[in-house]
């Protein structure tokens, strides 16, 4: 098991190196000159040239890539923001904690609501409860986060004034973004839970349990749910990753000072070290989440734990 985890962590390294090169290359070829954006509209060509030289923008691709790697590996430093001169690493970590909180709460919301809805629908299969739940889930899953976000902020913030329409602070700032971005995942989760529960319910061991006279409650929650948890876990891990990747939109709507708004501000002001640092950090976290999901499998499903010699792939979407 430990050997497997070690192997997986080692496997992450080349991927991360690849991500660094990918993001660096994208930013290297990005349209728009960072120096002239920084110098302002009425800067002379000479001033712009000075800034270019100071930031090392005149060096070639490989020199700059090499410098970036050197900085990352030797100093563990994501560089300095062109715009503010602040260290990207510390800013990214600070901003990320906000986004992470938001993402965790919204995924938790969707797991709780989604699985409950899915279980109820599966237990009451083909009744009106099932149909209503699945229709709601389908609508939820098709609801773009920004649409729900806007509607929620219109009703609860702008009209009713119950909750703030944006910003960050206490729990009241979190309610609307969590709802806006949790609902669509809750819908996906409910659909997934229902289908994997129904799949499990057809298995022989459920029939055996019924024949033994096990109570329906115990069958649902002990026999069926535990087995249905595997695709649910995959989905939950991916959802957390997707949510963290999608925070850009969520944070833009509710002006949450998270990593999403950080990256967007950086993109708009051509602050490439900040963009690179932000995306890289998210990729790192994304990788760690997928790793944790893989390890969780072994605890949920002893069968998988037993065959841990081969590594499993989580990226396959099972829906």
């Amino acid at each position: 098991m430990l050997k497997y985890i070690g192997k997986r962590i080692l496997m992450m390294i080349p991927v991360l190196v690849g991500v660094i090169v990918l993001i660096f290359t994208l930013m290297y070829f990005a349209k728009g000159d960072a120096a002239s954006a920084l110098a302002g509209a009425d800067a002379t060509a000479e001033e712009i040239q000075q800034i270019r030289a100071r930031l090392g923008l005149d060096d070639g691709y490989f020199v700059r890539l090499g410098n970036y790697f050197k900085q990352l590996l030797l100093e563990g430093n994501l560089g300095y923001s062109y715009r503010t001169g602040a260290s990207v690493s510390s800013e990214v970590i600070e901003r990320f904690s906000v986004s992470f909180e938001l993402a965790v709460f919204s995924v938790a919301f969707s797991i709780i609501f989604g699985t409950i809805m899915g279980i109820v629908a599966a237990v009451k299969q083909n009744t009106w409860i099932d149909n209503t739940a699945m229709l709601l889930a389908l609508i939820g899953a098709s609801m773009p986060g920004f649409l729900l976000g806007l509607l929620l902020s219109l009703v609860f913030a702008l009209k009713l004034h119950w909750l703030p329409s944006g910003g960050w602070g206490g729990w009241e700032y979190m309610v609307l973004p969590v709802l806006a971005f949790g609902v669509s995942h809750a819908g996906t989760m409910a659909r997934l839970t229902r289908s994997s529960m129904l799949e499990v319910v057809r298995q022989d061991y459920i029939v055996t349990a019924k024949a033994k006279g096990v109570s329906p409650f115990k069958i649902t929650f002990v026999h069926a749910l535990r087995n249905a948890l595997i695709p649910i876990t995959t989905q939950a891990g991916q959802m957390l990753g997707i949510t963290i990747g999608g925070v850009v939109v969520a944070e833009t709507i509710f002006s949450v000072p998270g990593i999403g708004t950080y990256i967007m501000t950086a993109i708009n002001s051509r602050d490439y070290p900040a963009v690179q640092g932000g995306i890289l950090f998210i990729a790192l976290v994304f990788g760690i989440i997928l790793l944790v999901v893989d390890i969780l499998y072994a605890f949920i499903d002893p069968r998988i734990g037993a065959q841990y010699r081969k590594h499993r792939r989580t990226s396959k979407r099972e829906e």
Partner: protein
Amino acid sequence: MEQNGTYSFLYTEDDESVKKESMFRITMKRLLKNKMAVLGGIILIIIVLASLLAPWISPYDYTYQELYNVNAGPSAEHWLGTDSLGRDILSRLLHGGRNSLTIGIVSTLLSALAGTALGATAGYYGGAYDNVVMRILDVFQAVPSMLLAIAISATLGTGYINCIIALTISGIPGSARMARASCMGVRNQDYIEAAVSINASEPRIIFKHVLMNALAPIFVMATMGVASNILMSASLSFVGLGVQPPEAEWGAMVSAGRNVLRYYPHICISPAIIIMLTVLSINMLGDGLRDALDPRLKQ
């Protein structure tokens, strides 16, 4: 050689065409029995037709600004009201549909094609080639797709074509993995070995035998992919990286209405609802397709 020709004539050409048609018919029959899927299909057809016919059926020019009549609510002249520049929202919705739907469909098609080609060959050949392809895709998949699309858009700049490119690239890893997984499942079947032993060419085996049998999940995924790409393109435009005004696009329209949400919510709401309806109808259709193509439910 003589014999190979006979075999391929006997087994592949005739049998396949007969089988394909009946398979198509079975799928359609099942799809039409599914009320949700039919409803989704009808809504989708209406939206697509309305967008296609936009230049003929829209009541106004979608860029015409009635500057004395801005932010007007729904009325007899402007059914859905006008936006902050006095442009007719209904006309912009119809024209925006052309952009949003094209972006969604074209980017999904391109990424499904490229991804399937990569995934199918990787799954079929295996070995070093598979390894290289998969490691490169790992890198692309290590960045959440929305973020990757944002980064690519930031590099290429805003606009219609760049939006399609960004969505295509971020969609490739997913479809490649899907294609690879289904091809690997098919690869060890007896009929592949039979095709190899009668000396069928590699492209033919990959295309006709492996891919054709692995197509159902790829097809379902592509259908759903259109929905998620429409959402992604709307999100890109929403954060200001997609299609730019005065071009109409649903996400950009939502974004433009956001600033006056408090006073004139109608500007935001109608494009948002259309996005939702489109995505919902595609998902309903995709669900139906998945069930219709599920081999476990075959009689």
